Structure formats: C-alpha cells, structure tokens
C-alpha cells in the first residue's frame, strides 16, 4: 500500500518518536548519576583498590566509542542466554557511559575545593563523612551544576546511537520515515531541528548557570 506523507505527517511521526529519545535520556541520566556517584566515591575515597578500579572504569568508558559499548551490551547480555530487547541494551550502555563521564566531571569539582577546607573541617574534629557532608560537597555541588547540565546535552545526543542497535527513537524514526518518503533532506533536517530544540535549552542554561553560580568567585 502506498501512502502519501505530507510534511506535517513526517513531523508528527518524528515528534512521536522523540518521546522515546526524551525517556531514554532521562533514564540514562538518572541511572548514570546514581552509578556515577558510586564511582566518584570509589575514585576519591581512601581505599587504593577502589581508586584504581574507578580510574580504570573511567578510562575504559571514555577511551572507547559509545557505539562499541552499545554493541557489547547488546551482544554481551545475550551471552547469558536472555533475549535482549534493544531498549535494555541501550539503557545499560548509556547508563554506564554517562556514569563514567559524570564521575570524572564531579571528581574535578571535588578536587577544585582547596586543601585548607579539608584541613579546617578536620581541625573541627569532623570525620571523613562529616567533612564530605558539611564542608566539601556543598561547595563542590555549586561548581558541579553547570557542567552537569551541559553534559546532559551529550546524553541526549548519545541516544541517537541507540538507533543503530534497533531502538526506535528519533534517529531511527528518521531513517524509517526516509525509507517511506524518499525525502532525506527534509526528514533529516527536521530530525536535526528536533534534536536542536531538545539540546539548545540545556546548553544555554548550562552557560547561564555558570555565570550565575560563579558570581561570588569572580571577585578574586
């Protein structure tokens, strides 16, 4: 059966698929933040093994293509004899990938807190956990917000790769609609604009937050 697609039909189908891009981005970001926190505490903690393991994890996920990680999640989970749906492989790989980047971003923020702050907290008789909770994290959190928001944009763009292992989101919908309409210029142009509409507010708010939250530091 042949069907005529108007530009409106194309846009409607793409927007419907964009819901999956948004959902997968949210799942990856929230899951990645939780795993990332775990990696962060291993990375900056006192245990030597934990630090080495966390550093290796970050190097592994930052030093290999996200596409390979998706393939390995897709085929690797299959080795356990379960039938892996594309969304599961996509979410697993994206969560692990996001965790590595967030852990590294946050480590930079914790290490940006001056040594004297640790020493001051220790001189008040605080233990490691208390130093973290009351002195270091509140300050680190402040500088961590802009780069974290900025990285959320990378997650949205990263979800585009899940189309390659067959998860139907915005990019995959773009390919499918192209195959049905033979209008790649219009379709991929619209897909790009929808991604732009999703990412641009994130990158702008990251820049704005950076200016706003940095204000007290700009005096010296």
């Amino acid at each position: 059966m042949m069907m005529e697609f108007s530009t409106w039909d194309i846009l409607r189908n793409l927007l419907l698929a964009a819901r999956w891009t948004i959902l997968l981005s949210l799942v990856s970001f929230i899951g990645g933040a939780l795993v990332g926190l775990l990696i962060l505490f291993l990375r900056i903690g006192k245990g030597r093994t934990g630090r080495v393991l966390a550093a290796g994890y970050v190097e592994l996920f930052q030093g290999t293509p996200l596409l390979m990680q998706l393939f390995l999640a897709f085929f690797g989970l299959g080795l356990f004899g379960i039938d892996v749906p594309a969304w599961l492989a996509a979410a697993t790989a994206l969560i692990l990938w996001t965790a590595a980047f967030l852990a590294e971003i946050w480590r930079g923020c914790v290490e940006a807190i001056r040594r004297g702050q640790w020493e001051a907290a220790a001189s008040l008789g605080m233990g490691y956990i208390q130093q973290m909770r009351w002195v270091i994290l509140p300050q680190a959190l402040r500088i961590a917000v802009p780069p974290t928001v900025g990285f959320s944009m990378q997650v949205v763009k990263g979800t585009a790769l899940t189309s390659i292992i067959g998860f139907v989101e915005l990019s995959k919908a773009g390919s499918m609609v192209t195959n049905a309409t033979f209008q790649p210029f219009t379709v991929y142009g619209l897909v790009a604009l929808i991604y732009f509409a999703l990412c641009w507010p994130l990158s702008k708010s990251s820049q704005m937050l950076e200016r706003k939250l940095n204000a007290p530091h700009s005096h010296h």
Partner: protein
Amino acid sequence: MTYQFDFSWIAEYLPLLLAGIAVTLELIFVGALVGVSLGITCAWIRALGPCWLRPPFVAYVELIRNTPFLIQLFFIFFGLPSIGVQFSELQAANLAMAVNLGAYSCEIIRAGIQATPRGQYEAGASLAMTPFETFRHVVMIPALQRIWPALSSQIVIVMLGSAVVSQIAAEDLTFAANYIQSRNFRAFEAYIVATAIYLLLSILLRQGLRGLGWALFPRRLP
C-alpha cells in the same frame, strides 16, 4: 554461562582489521587537520572579525554542537544528494568529521584567543603590525598552546565518534568488526577486539597529541 569464547578467527581477518584501522586513522588525520583549520578561522571571526560576519558562524557552531554527529553524517550523505551535492562514503565521513570538529574547536580556540592579555595586541600594534599580522604572529600560537589539552581531548572524542561512519558503509574499524561478525557469528568477540583496538588508538592518539604539543610549542607560557 556456558558460552565458549573463540578468538581463533583473528589471524584470518587480520588484514581486514588493519585496513579498518588505516581508514579510521586516515579519517581522524584529515578530520583533525581540516577541522582545526576551520576552527581557527571561525574562532578568529567570532573573536576579532567584523561584527556583520559573526551571526552565520554563531549559527554554524550552535547548530553543530546541539545535534548528534550521526544526524549530521546522515544529512550530508543522504540529505545533500537530493539537492544535487553528492559525496562518496569516505568523502562524506571526512566532511562530517571536519565540520563537527570545526564547530567544537572554534569554541575551544575562541576561549584561548579571548584569554590573550590586551597588552599583546597593543605590543603588536606598536610594532606597526596590521591586526591580521598581530593575530598571526602574536596571538594565535600562545592561544593554541593554552587550549592544546582541551583541543587534544576533543580530537580523541571525534576519533571515537567516527565509529558511526560505518553506518554509511565507510569501511573503518567498526565496519570491519560488523563484517567479521556477519561472517563468523562471533559478534561479542569481534566487538571486544574492535573495542580494545579503539582503546589503544585513543591512548596512542592522546600521547601523540601531547608530543605534538611539545614539538609545536617549545616555549613555556608566561
């Protein structure tokens, strides 16, 4: 888990893997060369160029930075031919990587240019240099040196991102892995090997760029 790993196919497919590595290296070499040149040009216009010339470059940078590389690649390879601009797989991959890196490196290099102390421009002007000569001889090299680590990381990121050019059938390392697993059905092993090679390439590329930095900028920054 009763799965038996089998890596005995590596010897047979070694030439294919090597050819894939060569294409990936060629892509990042050309992509980095053209992309960084594009980035320097855009950064110069955005930081110091005439006001009326800036908006299109701002639009270029924002458009590229806020859309996925995969879509940029598809737009160039599948979209542009319908308005009469056609590329081979490799040309499209090279172009997409250069355009992508151009936008990111523009922002990075611009930060380096804007960190130049005012006195440097005044010193250039007092030696009767034109604004362009000042940029070329006084501003650009220290600016590049300042942001070299950030630029190196971005080049590594683009190299890793190049894995998706296999989707338009450019025969890079990922394409080789796809081909191998379609022949011997050893998907997990094929991608593990490709992943390990990518990890090695990214480590080597990072070291190579650090060495290049030392060679290009022998003088320490003040």
